């Protein structure tokens, strides 16, 4: 009996000690922090790396295929249905909500539509989806608009155009998708009544990051590494084969030798 009372007393005292020691009132108000990017410094050990689809890839000459997959870490919550994108590499890597730069998709049945799809910047662009990689060309500065920042998701370079056009070519290896996963979606840009991007569920669509055993399992221009179809390190310079001297244009880069 005495022991029981002592035990009960001990529990009560301990509970009181814990509550007092924690210093918590039942209600409290925390200061509010403003944050638009979440540092992800340990995402990878070396550069260059980039989001590819919903994966994270790093390119290295020491890799047999030139590229391998690393662990992709993002904040444990989601601000929008588009998910996070990691921008920067190495110690500067940080996650930003994709919804900052592009609105969420609105779905109707199997088709989801994104108004104002992500573009390289605020200029004039023509874009297309190739195996869940977006390639854009153009980039003329918009008239009557102050110079603005570029979208960190795109890698850009001057176009090697034979007609002398001063254009740029930009590549997004991880374009927005309705659920944040490119596989099983076929997306296309439509500029007929304002620029939109439509994605339709399609199990037959070839996508970057598809599982693979060899490169023949992948869309032309992709390599098979870490069991996934991945692109070589992009060096954007072409929109069409004509832009490449003795090679082909794949995903905005001149690759291989057609002969």
């Amino acid at each position, binding site marked *: 009996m005495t022991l029981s009372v002592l035990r009960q007393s001990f529990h009560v005292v301990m509970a009181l000690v814990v509550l007092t020691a924690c210093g918590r009132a039942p209600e409290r108000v925390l200061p509010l922090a403003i944050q638009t990017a979440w540092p992800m410094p340990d995402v990878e050990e070396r550069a260059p790396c980039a989001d590819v689809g919903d994966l994270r890839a790093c390119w290295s000459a020491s890799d047999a295929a030139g590229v391998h997959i690393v662990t992709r870490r993002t904040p444990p919550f989601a601000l929008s249905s588009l998910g996070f994108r990691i921008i920067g590499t190495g110690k500067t890597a940080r996650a930003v909500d994709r919804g900052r730069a*592009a*609105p969420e998709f609105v779905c109707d049945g199997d088709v989801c539509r994104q108004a104002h799809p992500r573009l390289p910047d605020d200029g004039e662009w023509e874009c297309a989806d190739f195996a869940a990689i977006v390639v854009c060309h153009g980039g003329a500065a918009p*008239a009557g608009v102050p110079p603005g920042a570029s979208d960190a998701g795109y890698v850009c370079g001057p176009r090697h155009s034979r007609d002398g056009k001063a254009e740029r070519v930009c590549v997004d290896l991880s374009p927005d998708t309705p659920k944040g996963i490119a596989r099983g979606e076929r997306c296309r840009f439509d500029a007929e009544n304002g620029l939109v991007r439509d994605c339709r569920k399609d199990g037959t669509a070839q996508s970057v990051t598809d599982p693979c055993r060899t490169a023949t399992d992948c869309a032309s221009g992709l390599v098979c590494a870490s069991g996934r179809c991945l692109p070589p390190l992009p060096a954007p310079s072409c929109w069409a084969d004509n832009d490449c001297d003795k090679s082909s244009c794949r995903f905005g880069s001149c690759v291989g030798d057609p002969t």
Partner: protein
Amino acid sequence: MTRAWQLVVLGFLGALHVACGGGTAPSSYVVIDAAPEGALDLATAKVDGASVRAVTLSDGKLVVEQSGGEDASLTIRVDGACPLHVDAKDLSPAGTVRRHLAPFFDFGKPRMDVGFGKAFELVARPGCADAEHTRVTWNQTGGRALDGLVIDHEGRRLTATMPSFATLVGGKPDFGLVPVSAGARGEVELTATWMYQGRTVTRAVRASAAARARGLPNVAVNTRLYVVGDELHVQSAPDGSHAAVQAEPDDSHAKVEAAPDVASFVPDAPGVFTLADRHGRTLRLFAGRYEDTPLDCGRSDCHAEIAVSARSNPMTTILQRGLDGPFAGDYPSCALECHAVGEPGLDDGGFVSVAARFGLAPADLRRTGFHDLPAPLRRLGGVGCLACHGPGTIAEPGGRDALLRADVCATCHDAPPRYGHVVAWKSSRMAHSDADPRTRDGACARCHTTWGFLGERARKPPEGAAPSGIACAACHSVHPTKAETESVIGATCAAALRRETPIPALLEGAVPASADKSRTCLSCHTPDPANASPTGSASPTGSAAPTGSAASTGSAASTASASPTAGASSTAGASSTAGRSPAASASSTTSASPTAGRSPAASAAALWAGRGGVEPGTGAALDGGSPHGAVAGGCVGCHASGPTGLGRGSGHGFAASSDGCATCHAAKSDPSLRARALGLWAAAFHSNLPESATPPPHTMPPEIDTTTARGRALWDVALVVEDPAADRHNAPYARALLDAAERVLSPRTRAGKGNR
């Protein structure tokens, strides 16, 4: 023993750490957003909860990080919103729960298109149970007093009637689109106030009779337009439109909505609509969404130079400077309708409608900064091309003249009492410069019309168009050259957009830098010896355009050749004195008849500068001093008055104020000088008209032959007659001109002989 106690203490602290939630238990998250229309500022959030670890605001969303446990419930309070309670049972470890914050009262979108003379209601829809029993009080905090104002349901419903079309807009064209300025749309601001949990909360709600309209054929979809015609109907519409296309005007399914005062029409799809009336007159409208309109105007074969300069134009950068700079208060919500493209509250693809698609409320924009805005919003932020030219495709040439009317600028700058630029301008003589139809063509158009001043014949209005005066675009260059823009970056918009106009040759060396603000005035208020007469060969479409603006529009005309000084400055080898005399100019201008075009026009600037006169006997220049040359600002140093009660822009009335005269002058004017000049003029031309009926010399034949001493004397008289305020601009010089003229004219005028 000591070591054992240490272990016990460490163990206890470890248990305490875990109990306090400092262990490795995964967090759960609550992500909260709010509809932009609610105008809630999530930065005012207060989150109460025992297990809250962190609260973060990110791009219009709140992220609350929670440790798990039974005490994980939390409550979020935001100013103007219903409290949001999240129960612990809804949370899961490492999971995210989404919640939407409801405004305490939802007032809906701004009512920007109520209709002229139409009743409207504002309903405060409760967002939660507490709001259902909360009383709302209303105050009208802006705009014209509303008719029929009724407030009921404990203040949760307000009804009122907008003023009529006649009250707000007044006149309308015989046919076509009715421009609606910022002031004429009848915007009102009503502020709702309520108490909740001991705090006073206010919300401003806006309503307008109509959306603003530039009067241009390029129009935004889903925006009601007011149109004038006799039984107007839709003749053709683009694919996707639900407009009823009528074969006959009496079709009962007219999409053009008739009304007693003015009809209206809403283009509901992008493309070309043709409206027609029963007289066969047609009105073609080019409808589009702002967000879908390409901004490729700067292509190398189009407007490349303008596009380059526009990137740093103060109009273009206004939102950027506002968001990134020191603009305070509730910016940008107070200014989005004029610092960005589109009409807030309408689905026109403008800035506000696109911002809503990104879930961004004005408070979020303020925190985001311009360069972190999504690219589609940066394209619409600022007063860029579409803000003045409208969305959609390029209008047909026949529909482009309206661009030079003040109606375009009036969509923002006609919002009295705060912005009174257009109100003041309408009170000025500039606004009525082409009221007489005879001034709208030939040489007169050069200084009586905006298109003539700019040398843009392509923008000449069609016959029968309403007069438009010397409008904003004459003095303000909204497409400044790159050099103009760079020279004034950091200056106010007014300074930055002032048109750079060459100083007329007659005034070279006589205009101090302190008068730079008035350079634009000089070309039309200085007689041009080469191109002065309505009967002369000068044409507004030829080389006489005073501003050289044709160069900026891609025309081949150069600034030099477009200047009114070209005639004088081409007198190679002549002394500057001789070059400025009308006689010298006449003798060297081989293409013009020596007796044609010799009557000076509008001489106020010449009198002010002490220039323009000629010695009748020798033909040498007769110059004088410029006692008012040191007045800061030149012409507008004195001509800066307008209607009272305006916050900004009253100076656009250009009325001269005599307030400053008393510091130097006991008497403010010498009316005898004008009487003397009119007497000489009347005697020379057998005219006996009273002063009020005497037309300016430059409007009336016979012309002055400046190759004769008598003609040159008449020239001097005409200079004084042409300037009704000659005695105030420069009385000594006016007197000297009349003295010189009288020495030649008096014997002959007494003899009753005329010029010839």
